[in-house]
């Protein structure tokens, strides 16, 4: 769900993030309550319609939804054995729909819009928690994923180049040291960019 925003100007892209979040929550709840396969079929068709409306290419959509199929490959047979094919199919379709709907949301919504929406939702609790801080913490958490991924990849490469492939120390020590140093730099940059204001 990181960095998957798919730029566009469709109705879905322009819809306020809060409205989209509300719709997403309502639809996912509805699919959880609806039991019949035909009804879920209608929701599935509507979901496909949403992908088309947002003009998301099939390939891009597939990349978002396909990981859940690995889970289903395991969960559906188990469910089939213990609860019958209909329960298994219902569960499978529900899960795929939930992931697909969430994907429509993340692909049509910039992270900053989600953060702004979160801050609006948190406003009633502003006496106890600072919505700005929460928003920033989330943004940083999202930012740190590619940063850490790069760092680990570089350390793995360095370890390989120095012929220490099997060594856990040669992985853990540099990763920890560099993570701390990166955190230091990020802290400085945040200060320079006025986060303490």
């Amino acid at each position, binding site marked *: 769900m*990181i*960095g998957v*925003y798919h*730029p566009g100007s469709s109705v879905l892209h322009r819809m306020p993030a809060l409205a989209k979040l509300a719709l997403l929550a309502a639809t996912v709840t509805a699919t959880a309550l609806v039991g019949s396969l035909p009804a879920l079929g209608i929701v599935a068709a509507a979901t496909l319609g949403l992908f088309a409306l947002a003009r998301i290419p099939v390939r891009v959509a597939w990349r978002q939804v396909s990981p859940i199929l690995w889970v289903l490959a395991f969960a559906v047979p188990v469910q089939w054995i213990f609860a019958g094919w209909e329960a298994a199919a219902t569960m499978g379709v529900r899960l795929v729909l939930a992931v697909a709907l969430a994907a429509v949301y993340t692909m049509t919504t*910039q*992270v*900053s819009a989600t953060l702004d929406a979160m801050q609006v939702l948190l406003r009633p609790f502003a006496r106890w928690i600072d919505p700005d801080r929460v928003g920033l913490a989330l*943004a*940083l958490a*999202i*930012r740190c994923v*590619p*940063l850490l991924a*790069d760092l680990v990849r570089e350390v793995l490469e360095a370890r390989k180049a120095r012929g220490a492939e099997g060594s856990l120390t040669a992985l853990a020590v540099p990763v920890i040291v560099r993570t701390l140093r*990166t955190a230091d*730099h*990020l802290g*400085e*940059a*945040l*200060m*320079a*960019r*006025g986060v*303490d*204001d």
Partner: protein
Amino acid sequence: MSAIRFEGVSHRFDGELVVDDVSLELTERRIGIVGANGSGKSTLARMINGLVTPTSGTVTVDGLDVARHGREVRRRVGFVFTNADTQIVMPTVREDVAFTLRRHRLDAATATARVDAVLDRFGLAELADRPAHRLSGGQKQLLALAAVLVGEPAIVVADEPTTLLDARNARRIAEHFATLDEQLVVVSHQLELLESFDRVIVMEAGRIVADDAPEPALDAYRALIG
């Protein structure tokens, strides 16, 4: 131009003296700082916006004591780091530039217009919605500079902003520096970047050993490092 003033400034890290009794008044438009590794350049540059507080002496920007008025000073002083990766906070290019404006509390239309203008100026408009972490190194440094300038600082301090870039991207950053109206303080080992500056300061072991026009100062530095 703004005035950056160091008065009897010293700094120690764990007892080790890394900036040794520096007094300076920086009023020129473009000022370069050179010196060997570990001579104290970064420490000196960081003092201008309060990332480092001197152990003794005072640093002031337009009369504001950096140690006491850090926030106001940081609004006037933009800082460009060597590694743009650790300066980028938000997921996409546009969002990261806009992040700087959060503290300015502008209305949405003004903020968007300012972000768009800066993205345009740095040739980042087509990349606006791309994930910032997937830009090339040169594009990342342009983004870092754009994100600093959108805040309209009076002074830009840059610590080795071109060290990680290839010659072409380094030149692009240099060209942008040449067009800036802001006062500029640049730490660099790439001496040609500083040749067109107004003043160059040479540091050695925490002290200022030369402070002159670029040509004589850079000659003195070359003689020093042999």
